[in-house]
């Protein structure tokens, strides 16, 4: 018999994140590395435990291996619990056949049994593709206070940006009267952050109804929210203020990493009252050699630096040899940047080798036409050979040898 929970979390982590291209060829988007030692999923998981939520179902589908082994028993997030804790929930087979998760709502539908075991009052639905710190307990208090059937976290965006988001049109008190997915002419700037609290009884019924509708694409934004509005349920918008970034594209992932170096960005990983936890191994401290020059950079344990670093983020065990020059680079674990190589405005994934004198990416100042410029990306385990050039915007496939 499971103990009744006030609220549990369902974390949608099955997406490919196809706009991250080579970075998500081999891992799901929530397992993409971020900020020197984290993965994207560390943010929602840490937010949960910091908000007092001790039961999290993680729904996986696309390339789950890395995610499964990373989450493990949940111990780094204090989610290894006797009652509750973290569960990986992949799609499964039944006597009626087997199905993939067809959409976000269908993924929850298929796990109704899991949620019912905890008999929660409310369910928090999250996605594993955003970088932000948020106290879900405050959102829950708002949800209870307003007596809403569903509460959706929203963020004020600029009017120009609004047509890229799902927009909530609300009355003055925050009651949602209309939801528009990527509107051409937005009426409001309240963008949905993909964070929902639902009254479980009500959501459960809507999921069952939605599943029975063959025309539905089984998606929260497209189907469940509009259906609830049609049914006259009370939906509230919960205003969030603070740092939040969808890291679904190469540019936004790079920007979010750079934001860590910008004190004005409001994204701090070291605040003692809201720690972000990660699974980490025991590497020795990073070593800085005789010839190193390091300015405004983030460096993780296990690195050996003897080159020049300017505004860069280095994950664990990265080697930067003498004479190598890094500027605004994000370099993931175990990568080696050899003598005299140059890496500028680029993301280099794990286990890559940039050989002597190779050049990856370039400074946007050198491009009069900004459409020719973009972040260069080198996939996992790829080798960029001696003297080769990887142009801005170019992407090198995982394990490529060029």
């Amino acid at each position: 018999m499971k103990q009744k929970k006030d609220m549990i979390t369902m974390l949608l982590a099955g997406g490919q994140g196809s706009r991250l291209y080579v970075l998500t060829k081999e891992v799901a988007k929530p397992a993409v590395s971020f900020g020197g030692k984290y993965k994207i999923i560390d943010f929602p998981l840490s937010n949960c435990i910091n908000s007092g939520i001790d039961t999290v179902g993680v729904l996986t589908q696309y390339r789950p291996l890395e995610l499964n082994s990373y989450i493990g028993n949940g111990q780094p997030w204090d989610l290894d619990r006797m009652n509750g804790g973290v569960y990986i929930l992949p799609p499964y087979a039944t006597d009626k056949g087997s199905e993939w998760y067809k959409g976000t709502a269908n993924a929850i539908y298929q796990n109704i049994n899991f949620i019912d075991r905890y008999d929660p009052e409310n369910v928090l639905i999250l996605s594993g593709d955003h970088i932000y710190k948020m106290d879900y307990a405050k959102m829950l208090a708002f949800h209870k206070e307003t007596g809403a059937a569903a509460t959706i976290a929203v963020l004020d965006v600029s009017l120009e940006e609004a047509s890229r988001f799902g927009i909530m049109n609300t009355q003055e008190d925050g009651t949602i009267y209309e939801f528009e997915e990527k509107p051409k002419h937005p009426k409001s700037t309240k963008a949905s952050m993909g964070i929902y609290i639902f009254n479980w009884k009500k959501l459960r019924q809507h999921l069952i109804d939605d599943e029975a509708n063959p025309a539905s694409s089984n998606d929260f934004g497209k189907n469940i929210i509009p259906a609830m509005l049609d049914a006259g349920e009370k939906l509230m918008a919960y205003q969030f203020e603070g740092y939040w970034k969808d890291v679904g594209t190469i540019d936004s992932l790079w920007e979010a990493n750079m934001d860590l170096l910008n004190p004005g960005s409001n994204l701090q990983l070291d605040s003692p009252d809201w720690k972000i936890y990660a699974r980490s191994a025991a590497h020795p401290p990073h070593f800085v050699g005789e010839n190193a020059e390091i300015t405004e950079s983030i460096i993780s344990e296990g690195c050996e630096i003897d080159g020049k670093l300017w505004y860069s983020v280095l994950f664990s065990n990265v080697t930067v040899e003498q004479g190598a020059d890094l500027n605004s680079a994000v370099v993931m674990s175990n990568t080696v940047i050899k003598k005299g190589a140059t890496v500028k405005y680029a993301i280099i994934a794990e286990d890559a080798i940039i050989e002597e004198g190779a050049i990856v990416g370039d400074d946007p100042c050198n491009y009069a036409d900004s459409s020719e410029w973009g972040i260069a990306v080198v996939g996992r385990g790829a080798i960029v050979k001696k003297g080769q050039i990887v142009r801005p915007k170019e992407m090198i496939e995982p394990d490529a040898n060029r």
Partner: protein
Amino acid sequence: MISKTMCILFSESYTATPNELAEERTLATVPFGGRYRLIDFVLSSLVAAKVSNIGILTKEHYGSLMDHLGSGKDWDLGRRNGGLKILTPFAKAETAATRDRSKIDALLSCRTYLEENAEEYVILADTNVVMNIDFRAMVEYHVEKDADITLLYQNRNNPTYNGMVVDCDRNGRVIDAFYSAGQTHETQSTLLKVFIFKKSLLLSLLDRAYTFGWADFDRDFITKNINKLNIFGYEHTGYCAVINTVADYYEASMELVNTQVRHELFESDIPILTRVKNSPPAVYGFNGKARNSLIADGCIIDGEVNNCIIFRDVEVKKGAVLNNCIIIQGSVIGENAQLNCVITDKNVTVQEGHVLSGYPTYPFVISKGETV
């Protein structure tokens, strides 16, 4: 054979007086190398050799040891069977007052622990030894030689050493074992305080020790038995630092900026495991400069750091200049402070503009939590 081997570690050295860094903690938990504690090295070697039944004998102020080790899971020693066991001092009315108990007394207090475990061999090791060692090979050597006791030694020329040295014959059998008075400039086979015993033999030696009131482990267990028992020496040829004094500590710490030493310690087949904490990566500010230094996660470097070991969560503020220093966890070095050959223990604050200096052979140590 290794599965038939258990281990007892000593959290104190019993012979040397504790140095300033071990005043409020065990010698085993003196912070070392930017994020480790001394015990991590021998413990990691044991784990790599799959010795998974390890008892740690404590003497006093072992709170830091319990904090550090926790359930042992960071060393993969949080086991249902075996794993890590902290053996707390056993105070009976008649022994309660004897604070300066010997190593033999300590072993007598854990006799039951030795007896109730089925392993045939037992490794006894001090924890203040910074090295990687292949315990599997050492145990195999012990079995192959049919030894009663195997002791680990290293040929060193160390004039300040005043521990036990041994002479071995061509087969490796120990033919002499005596205390070196120090000040000799010859290479000597110095003990690294790591022994393998047949457990039944250790128990019978403990009986004798109890009967005759023996108190000196090296002299009474080794030297007295040279002719009676098969005692073999096993040479350690890799890097090794034994840390007793602050000078030992400073010298060994500073050796870590030598890439060869660092790679031998940290990039061998034996990963050095330690308690995993959750600090974000280190951040360098606009004015940060570092050269030839080891810097741990959680640091904020906005000053200048040369030839230093900087532990976790240290802040070096703008304009501060640190040369040849060891700055332990959580310390803050204020703006424009200048430090040379200084060791700050945990959570020390050096206020802005202060100039402090020690000397390489006599570093200036600032105790835990102090504000200068």
